[in-house]
């Protein structure tokens, strides 16, 4: 099949960007989207041009490294799919596809389709953990966890930290990402002691990084490759209100 790509090219963080158009005329429908870009890059290299820089690693939808916009949609048109698991058979022969990096103040472009997502790491560093030193853990079965609680926590913990939720949000909010971690740890009995502090600190870190606020658009859930529910944002908001009440009282 034939594919026309309009790709965002940007030399560096400081440089101005522009779109470049590339035509590929023998795309195999069984290729993944990233394999199609591999083919483009081999071609560009042999033509003496610079290949398109894009992040990727595991190519099986779990590491969270890949991600950009295809025609304005984070991770492309298939629901619940990362770019690396999106295959060309989902596109029409002759399709024109515009590829852009995540657009968000907190995610500066590094090069072409690669952005700096270290802000998400700093949100976790602000409190997205349970403070337990190695060696001080009690016997694993000492705290029973109801099966459905563990399942619900796992639904939230499935977040791969790709940043699609931020890219899709009109406010560039990292609320779904933050809510997923707050909910995962807040559901587990082990996460209770720090629960109120955690939500407060993580929200403060999110704001400090330049992510916007959540105004319930729901775009995040629509593009999330792990289909994480905005229900967790509601859960975060409840914890945040409780933390305001509880923590001021102390």
């Amino acid at each position, binding site marked *: 099949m034939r594919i026309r790509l309009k790709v965002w090219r940007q030399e560096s963080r400081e440089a101005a960007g522009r779109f470049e158009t590339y035509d590929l005329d023998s795309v195999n429908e*069984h290729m993944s989207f990233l394999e199609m870009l591999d083919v483009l890059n081999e071609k560009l290299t042999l033509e003496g041009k610079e290949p398109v*820089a894009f992040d990727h690693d*595991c190519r099986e939808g779990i590491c969270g490294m890949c991600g950009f916009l295809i025609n304005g949609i984070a991770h492309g048109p298939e629901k619940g799919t990362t770019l690396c698991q999106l295959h060309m058979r989902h596109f029409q022969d002759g399709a024109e596809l515009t590829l852009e990096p995540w657009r968000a103040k907190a995610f500066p472009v590094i090069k072409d389709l690669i952005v700096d997502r270290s802000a998400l790491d700093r949100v976790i560093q602000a409190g997205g953990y349970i403070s337990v030193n*190695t060696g001080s*853990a*009690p016997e*694993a079965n000492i705290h029973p*966890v109801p099966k459905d609680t563990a399942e619900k*926590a796992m639904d939230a913990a499935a977040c791969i*930290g790709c940043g699609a939720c931020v890219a899709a949000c009109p406010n560039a909010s990292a609320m779904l990402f933050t809510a997923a971690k707050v909910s995962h740890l807040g559901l587990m009995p082990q996460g209770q002691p720090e629960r109120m502090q955690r939500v407060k600190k993580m929200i403060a870190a999110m704001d400090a990084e330049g992510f916007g606020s959540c105004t319930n658009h729901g775009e995040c859930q629509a593009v999330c490759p792990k289909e994480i529910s905005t229900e967790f944002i509601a859960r975060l908001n409840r914890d945040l209100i409780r933390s305001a009440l509880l923590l001021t009282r102390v």
Partner: protein
Amino acid sequence: MSEKIRATAPDGPIETRWERRRFEYKLVNPSNRRKYTVIVIGSGLAGASAAASLGELGYRIKVFCYQDSARRAHSIAAQGGINAAKNYQNDNDSIFRLFYDTVKGGDFRARESNVYRLAQVSNNIIDQCVAQGVPFAREYGGTLANRSFGGAQVSRTFYARGQTGQQLLLGAYQALSRQVAAGTVTIFPRTEMLDLVVEKNRAVGIIARNMITGEITRHAGDVVVLASGGYGNIFFLSTNAKGCNASAAWRSFRRGAFFANPCFTQIHPTCIPVSGDYQSKLTLMSESLRNDGRVWVPKKKGDKRPPNEIPEEERDYYLERRYPAFGNLVPRDVASRAAKVVCDAGHGVGESGFGVYLDFSEAIERLGEETIRQRYGNLFHMYEKITGENPYRTPMRIYPAVHYTMGGLWVDYDLMSTIDGLFVAGEANFSDHGANRLGASALMQGLADGYFVLPYSVPNFLATAGHSEATPDDPEFLSAEREVEDRIRRLLSINGSRTVDSFHRELGMVLWQHCGMARNRQGLEEALKRIPEIRAAFWKDVKVPGSAETLNQALEKAGRVADFLEMAELLCRDALEREESCGCHFREEYQTEEGECRRNDEDFAHTAVWEFAGDEKPPVRHKENLKFEYVKPSQRSYK
């Protein structure tokens, strides 16, 4: 035997060896710990857990990873689970049984003392991960659930859906993040180690490249921990992540760290086959599918009819035919080799001819589609996503793929390499799996090393050897930095006519053909002739676009492939010298009449330990003899 190869495990009863060794270890006073710098390469299960634990103790830690975040290391992709000898199912599991299964599963090529320790600390790992909030699967009563896995008759595998590696890694990453906040750990993401700096046979630091700016930096430390993963990507196509590489290990080998059993590479039988020459990686499908799927190929060579049009009598259910007792459930290595045999003979299916059918039609007829959906729904969904075919209607196509490397840098009982102060953990070392790793044991080993071995053995080294006096301005640092820069300049200046990937693919084909599922003298000798030719062509004709001063993914790849092109020779040399078949190393000359591995315990009950001898001379093969005091070697049979 080299003076340097001493396992240092204590003698005496195996049950108390680790306890006694720990008591011998020297300690570092809490107020002195912050004066020591520990460099950790890699942020997967082994690296992140070691860095977090040593940070908690008060050491200053620098963690380097090539990904944009420590959370993305390839441990994240592990699906199945993690073993531990908790005996929660009351099925008579024990530390000794986990130890026994692991030594036997490794076909008697692992060190007993290390494996026993692994089994001992396995239970602490589960405790630790649960305390971190890892959402393991639970029973209705709230206790932890277990499932069965290959190579064991007990149910000892803990899991979090099909994402166990992800959840364990996030647990370790969160512990690491807490130490970043506490100021003990600094993470250097998008930074790749390009060389090890050694002074007077002590590792004193690394040379690294900032992958965004291209800046080359020198980092001094009192200890270097390599937790940089395995070398499966040497084959180009593997289930590893695209960025997985052996450069940190290989550069350390060139600086004096010995390399053990490089030919022990595991090939997993059930992966989605290659669909074209654009293929960039392979995806694993859980081997549990073989419980209900029947493996077959057309009897007629080159039969291109769709599978549903091939009548029953024209199908060859070759596993059932060759192994009537175990049928489709033969172990990984046997299933992989059998698929290769039928495809090499021209019976393979799919566009490439390198695939076999895994057919569920009979199981669906017998049990109903709903039962199959409950058992394997997520796997069928993933298969359909990748191939666009519906496995409820048409048989899956599968083929073996490179998955894990048991070989790695040689380490002693303390996990220290032959270079003082260079510790190696996780898949990067060779220590626990012998010639074949059992399922759900990789996660266990990575976390055992990082949470429960290195936090004791690294301080012992520091207390004994003291501070490294080295500074980043020492001549050894400056000359290593110069070598790194020269190499980068050279790669960029060749400006030839072929891409890096084209060489990598070519190397992968040679290795896959001659040093893959089955090996023989003639093929290995052929590979040893071809590899230097490919390497020479690479350094003459590779085209690496762009510059050294920016983010340049082609340059990153070029450096890694250049190292693979050197390492490939060691792999083949090791396979050639090991004149026996054991575990995943199958030499066609050494097989039983039934076509199974024929081990040679008389001559090869040892670890092959290779020493770099310079570019002009072949590496030197040393031996670490293996003693089996607790598990008596026996022959495996699956007829």
